[in-house]
C-alpha cells in the first residue's frame, strides 16, 4: 500500500512508516522540509531535517532557535522504519526531493522542482522510484518556458528602453529564489548595480554567502533623498506593486518575472507593462520528462490543479492519481504562488 509510506493528514503529508511529516503546515514532532518557501517551511515543529545546501536559508525562515539537522545530498539517514535521503530538485538554493525507502518500496516526493538550468542551485536529479509525487503548478501544455537567454535579452532591451525614456524599471518577482536567479543571470551580461526592496536584502546576502555570483546590489532605503532612479533597475516583491513605496521612483515602467506571464491576459489583469516568463517550477515538458525519468509505477499529483496532468498521464499509459486519493485529508497548497 502506498499509504504506508505517504498519507495526507490535516497537518501535511505524513509518512506512517517513518513517523515524520514532509513540509507540514502545522507544528509536528518530526519534519522533513524540502525548501525554504513559506508554503513549505513553517516554524514551530520540534525537529527539522533539511538539505545542508539550504541550511542557512532554513535558519533564516524557521528561526535560529529551531532544531535543524542538515544532511548532505544523497546521505542516507534512518527515520522510523525508513531510510531517507535528499536530492536536488533544481527549484531554488538547497531545494530537495525526499527519497523514502521502506516497506520494500521507494517513494520520491519531489517538492517544487524545475528542469531548466539555474546558476543559483544544483540541477534536478532524477531519482528512480516506485512512487513519484509531483507538483503541477503549471500543468498545461501552454506552459513551455523559453530559453533564459531569450528572457535576459528581453529584460536588457526593456532596461535600454527605460533608460531612453528616462523612467525607472521596476521588476517585481518573488524575494526568495526568483530574485537571485535573475540577478545571477543578468550578471553574465552586465555589471550595473540593482536597487533592492528591503524584503530582498537578507535573502540576497544569504545567496552571496553560499557562493552565488550576482550583480552588485544596493538597498533602495539607503539611497540619497530625492535620488533620480531614471534608467535604473529596481527589484521588489509583488506586494510592493501599487504601494506608496513606489512613489519615490516617479515615472516607472513595471515588469513581473513569473511563469504566469506566459499568458497575455494574466499580465494585463495584473496591470504590469512587461511580463517576463521566468519560472522556478517545471513547465509541461519538464513535468512529463520527470515522470519518465524516475520510472515510477504510480504518480501522485499535488500543488496546483492537476486534473489535466493526471488525465494526460493516464491517456499515455501511466497510473496517475491526485495525492488526495491516498485517503486522509490535507488542505490544498495551491493558495500560495510563492516562487512561481
Amino acid at each position, binding site marked *: 500500500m502506498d499509504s504506508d509510506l505517504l498519507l495526507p493528514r490535516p497537518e501535511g503529508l505524513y509518512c506512517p512508516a517513518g513517523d515524520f511529516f514532509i513540509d507540514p503546515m502545522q507544528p509536528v514532532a518530526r519534519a522533513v522540509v524540502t525548501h525554504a518557501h513559506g508554503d513549505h517551511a513553517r516554524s514551530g515543529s520540534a525537529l527539522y531535517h533539511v538539505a545542508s545546501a539550504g541550511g542557512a536559508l532554513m535558519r533564516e525562515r524557521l528561526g535560529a532557535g529551531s532544531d535543524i539537522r542538515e544532511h548532505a545530498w544523497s546521505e542516507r539517514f534512518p527515520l522510523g522504519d525508513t531510510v531517507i535521503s535528499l536530492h536536488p530538485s533544481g527549484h531554488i538554493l538547497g531545494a530537495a526531493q525526499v527519497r523514502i525507502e521502506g516497506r520494500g518500496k521507494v517513494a520520491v516526493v519531489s517538492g517544487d522542482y524545475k528542469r531548466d538550468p539555474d546558476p543559483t542551485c544544483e540541477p534536478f536529479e532524477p531519482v528512480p522510484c516506485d512512487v513519484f509525487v509531483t507538483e503541477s503548478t503549471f500543468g*498545461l*501544455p501552454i506552459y513551455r518556458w523559453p530559453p533564459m537567454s531569450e528572457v535576459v535579452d528581453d529584460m536588457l532591451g526593456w532596461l535600454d528602453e527605460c533608460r531612453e525614456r528616462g523612467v525607472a524599471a521596476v521588476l517585481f518577482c518573488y524575494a526568495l529564489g526568483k530574485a537571485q536567479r535573475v540577478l545571477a543571470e543578468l550578471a553574465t551580461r552586465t555589471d550595473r548595480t540593482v536597487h533592492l526592496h528591503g524584503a530582498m536584502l537578507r535573502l540576497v546576502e544569504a545567496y552571496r554567502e553560499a557562493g552565488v555570483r550576482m550583480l552588485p546590489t544596493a538597498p533602495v532605503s539607503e539611497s540619497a533623498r530625492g535620488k533620480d532612479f531614471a534608467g535604473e533597475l529596481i527589484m521588489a516583491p509583488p506586494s510592493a506593486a501599487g504601494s506608496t513605496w513606489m512613489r519615490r521612483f516617479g515615472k516607472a515602467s513595471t515588469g513581473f518575472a513569473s511563469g504566469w506571464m506566459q499568458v497575455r*491576459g494574466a499580465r494585463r489583469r495584473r496591470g504590469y*507593462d512587461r511580463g517576463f516568463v521566468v519560472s522556478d517550477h517545471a513547465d509541461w515538458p519538464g513535468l512529463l520528462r520527470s515522470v519518465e525519468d524516475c520510472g515510477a509505477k504510480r504518480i501522485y499529483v499535488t500543488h496546483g490543479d492537476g486534473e489535466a496532468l493526471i488525465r*494526460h498521464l493516464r*491517456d499515455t499509459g501511466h497510473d496517475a492519481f491526485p495525492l488526495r486519493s491516498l485517503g486522509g485529508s490535507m488542505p490544498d497548497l495551491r493558495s500560495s504562488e510563492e516562487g512561481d
Partner: protein
Amino acid sequence: MRRFATLFEALDRTSSTSAKRDAMAAYFADAPAQDAAWAVYVLGGGKLKRTATSTELRSALAAETRYADWLIDDCYQHVGDLAETIALMLPRDDESREDTALHVWMEARLPSLGRMESAERIEVLREWWRGLPREQVFLVNKLLTGSLRVGVSHRLVVQALAQWAQLPTDLIAHRLSGTWKPGAEAFAALAGPERPDEHAGERPYPFFLASPLEQDVTALGPTADWLAEWKWDGIRAQVMRREDHVLIWSRGEERLDGRFPEIELAGADLAPGCVLDGEILAWTPDEAHPLPFAALQKRIGKLKPGAKLLADTPVRLMAYDLLELDGIDLRERPLSERRASLAALIEGRGPTLMLSPAVDASEWSALTTVRTESRERRTEGLMLKRLDSPYRVGRKRGDWWKWKVDPYTIDAVLLYAQPGHGRRSGLFTDYTFGVWDGDALVPVAKAYSGLDDAEIGRLDRWIRAHTIDRFGPVRSVEATHVFELAFEAIQASGRHKAGVAVRFPRILRWRTDLAIRDADKLDDLRRLATG
C-alpha cells in the same frame, strides 16, 4: 507582417497612451502605405469577414499537435483566447521564416480561406502556422477571428495619424469616418492637405457625443446658458442630403440606407448640401410619445421593410442639430445659431422631420422636477447642451451632458458563469442572473461589468468550487449569491425564456446581506415592462 508584429508588441507592452500614440505614429511614417492602411483599419477596430470557424481552428490545432480535444479545451478555458491558445500550444521553432506583408494577409490570404472546403482550410491553416514565428501565429489568428484588442481606441489611432500627418485630429477623424476602405492611396490621402470641398462627400461628420452628468446639475452655472432636451431612446443618426440622393449614417458609422424610406423621402425634400443630426424613433401618428425601442428594433433589422411594417411601425427623425446647410460646414457656429437655422429649415415639414423640442425651465430645480416625467414620455432623461458650444468631435466633456433618470434596479441570483476575454481572460467574469418564477429561478440578464478586481477574484474562486454542471465554457453554479443589477429599460420579449428582456444590465453591488429568497420575482419585472 514583422513590422506590424513589432508595433503590436510595443502597444501591448505599455499602458501609457502617449507611448502608444508615438509607437503608431512612428509606424505610419515607416511602413509601406498599403500595410499602414490595414494597420489603421484593424487597430481602429475593423475586422474582416470571418473565413474560418473556431471549430476548424481547433481541428487544425489538434491535427498539428496531436493533443486530445479535451486538453485543447482545458487550455482554451485557461487562456480565454483561442488565437493565443493556438500560439502557445504549437511547437516552437525558431528557424528563419518567410515574412508576408500585412496587406497580403488581409487582401489575399485570409479572404482566400472563404473560398475553400473545410478540410482544405484546415490544411492551409496548418501550413501557415508552420511557417510563422509565435507572435505572428497569434496575430494571424487574431485577424482571422476578430478584433485585436490591444488597448487602442479608434480615437487614439486618429491622434496618431494626426501626429504623423501633422494635421488636425478632427480632419483625420472626418477623413476616416464612414466606410473607409484601406489601400495605399486611401492611406496617403489621409495625410493630404485640406481641400475646401472636403466635407461635401458621402462621409458623415464625426459624431459629437455627450458625457454622463456626474456632478450636481447646479454646478453647470446659470440655467440660461443651457438648452435642455429630452434624451430620446432611438438610433442616433446623421441624415445627409447630397446632390442627388440622401444618406443615413448611424453613430456606429454604418449606412442605414433603405431601412428608413420615410426619412429618406423627407430628406429628399430638403435642398442639397445639408446634414441633420438626430434620433430615429418609431412613432405612430397622432401619438404623444414614441413607441418603445423594441418596436424600432423590428425596423433596424429590415433592409427593405414591407407595407405592413411601414404602416404598423412608422419612423421619424427627431432632429436636434444642423451640421451643414447650403454646403457650408456649420460645426464651428454656436449651438443657438445652428438650432435657429434648423428650426427654420424643418418648420412645417410634417411629422417625419421633427425639431427636438426644448424643455423650458428657468431653474435647475424645475428641470429636476420635469426630469421625473422622462419614463412616462419614453425617454431616458434629459440632455443638457451649452448654447454657445460648437459641434465637437467625439466624447469631449463640458458642453454636452446626458442627465439620465436613475436606472431600474433588481436583486437577482447568480446562475451561470463563463470566462471573460481580453484583460479578464481566464477568470469567470461573464455572469447570468435569474429571478424567481414561482419556485424556480429563471435567467433574465447577463452582465459583465460592475465588480472590482478583488470581488471578481473572490467570485471566480467561489464559482470554481461550486460548479454544478458544465456546458462548454459555461458553468452552472449553486444558487447562493444575490447581486443588485441596474438596467435602463425592460421590455416584453418572446425570444427570451422569461418573457422579458432588459437593456444595458450591469452589476451595482454584491448583496452579501441578501439570501436568494430575497431576490426579485419575475412578475415584478413583467409589471415594469413597457411594451
